[in-house]
């Protein structure tokens, strides 16, 4: 037994490959048997991943989900930023430049609209909960943009650690919701072509949420949505501590 544990511990990434393979197989089986293929296997696999992350977070008290369990740390490598970005870029192989160019302008518009709308929505909720200082309202609003924009903005304008934590939590809620809800609503928001996928990526913007949501909807849309989403966090970090903060300060 100890020998087996040693093997697993010494081969983290390989263990992750095997484990994820098993999860994907189980998910496709569940999709076929329980939902007759109505809910895509990938969507179920992502849900199982999130459920495991919740359980692991409760069990370990850590912040990196299953990756905080020593034996399963390889999942952190496999699902970490490096391989995620490597995978996202590879999906662009075979994409037509003409498709990207066609929706380029509306894609840019959607990025700025997405940052602004998410910020206003988050800031409005902060106001409803009784926050009246510009720094806290801005930080929570920025958290609703993405969980990176929140703390970057908050740190730049000197928010309290309690508010920083709230803004990260708001961003994580958004990322998780986008992953889970996208495949369910794709049909109703016309998310079935490259152009609307670019608009979707720009509006929602949270890289992991968009990446997961589109993967569970139709993998062929991933490169288009990822293309715009990847600019979103940068634009958010640019506007958060500057334009958005000054606007809030002028208003309260």
């Amino acid at each position, binding site marked *: 037994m100890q020998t087996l544990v040693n093997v697993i511990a010494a081969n983290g990434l390989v263990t992750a490959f095997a484990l994820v393979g098993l999860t994907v197989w189980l998910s496709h089986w569940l999709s076929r048997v329980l939902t007759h293929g109505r809910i895509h296997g990938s969507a179920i696999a992502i849900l199982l*991943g999130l459920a*495991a992350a919740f359980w692991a977070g409760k069990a370990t008290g850590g912040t990196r989900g299953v990756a905080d369990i020593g034996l399963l740390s390889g*999942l952190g490598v496999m699902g970490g930023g490096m391989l995620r970005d490597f995978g996202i870029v590879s999906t662009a192989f075979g994409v037509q430049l003409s498709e990207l160019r066609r929706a380029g302008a509306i894609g840019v518009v959607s990025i700025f609209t997405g940052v602004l709308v998410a910020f206003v929505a988050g800031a409005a909720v902060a106001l409803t909960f009784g926050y009246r200082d510009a720094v806290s309202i801005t930080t929570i609003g920025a958290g*609703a943009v993405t969980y990176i924009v929140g703390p970057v903005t908050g740190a730049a304008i000197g928010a309290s650690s309690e508010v920083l934590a709230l803004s990260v939590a708001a961003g994580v809620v958004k990322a998780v919701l986008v992953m889970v809800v996208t495949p369910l609503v794709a049909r109703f928001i016309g998310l079935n*072509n490259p*152009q609307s996928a670019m608009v979707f990526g720009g509006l929602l913007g949270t890289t992991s949420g968009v990446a997961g949501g589109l993967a569970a909807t*139709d993998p062929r849309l991933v490169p288009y949505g*990822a293309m715009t989403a990847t600019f979103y966090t940068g634009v958010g970090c640019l506007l958060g501590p500057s334009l958005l903060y000054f606007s809030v300060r002028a208003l309260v």
Partner: protein
Amino acid sequence: MVIYGVALLAACLLAGQYAGDLLGLWLGVQANVGGVGIAMLLLVLASSSRALRPLVTDEAAGGIRFWGAMYIPIIVAMAAGQNVVAAVDGGLLALLAGAFATLTCFLLVPLLSRWGPPGTPLPPPESVDSATGAPR
């Protein structure tokens, strides 16, 4: 050679991330601005360039497609590494702020899509390989 494709992919990602970091510095932002998007553009350009043909055809293409097919499994691993507890324990404010922002933006997708050029729906997924997007 499979590695040629993988190396091209790696070079695109590194160049894109570098450009994204430089763009962030130039804008005075503490974040990478569009690094992955720039990398994707580089890959698209590379795959249509005549000079780089040996890096994007035959076996080398297989090296790029493999990672495209690994994309969903990587996303499953990513989901398993999310801080879901923070999302749930963040309380009502975090939940409402995140949910309200998500919902409004979802509702805007069809509106903004209408402003842009009309999109043609992709053919039904059954007719293509779901992992690579290539016709079966």
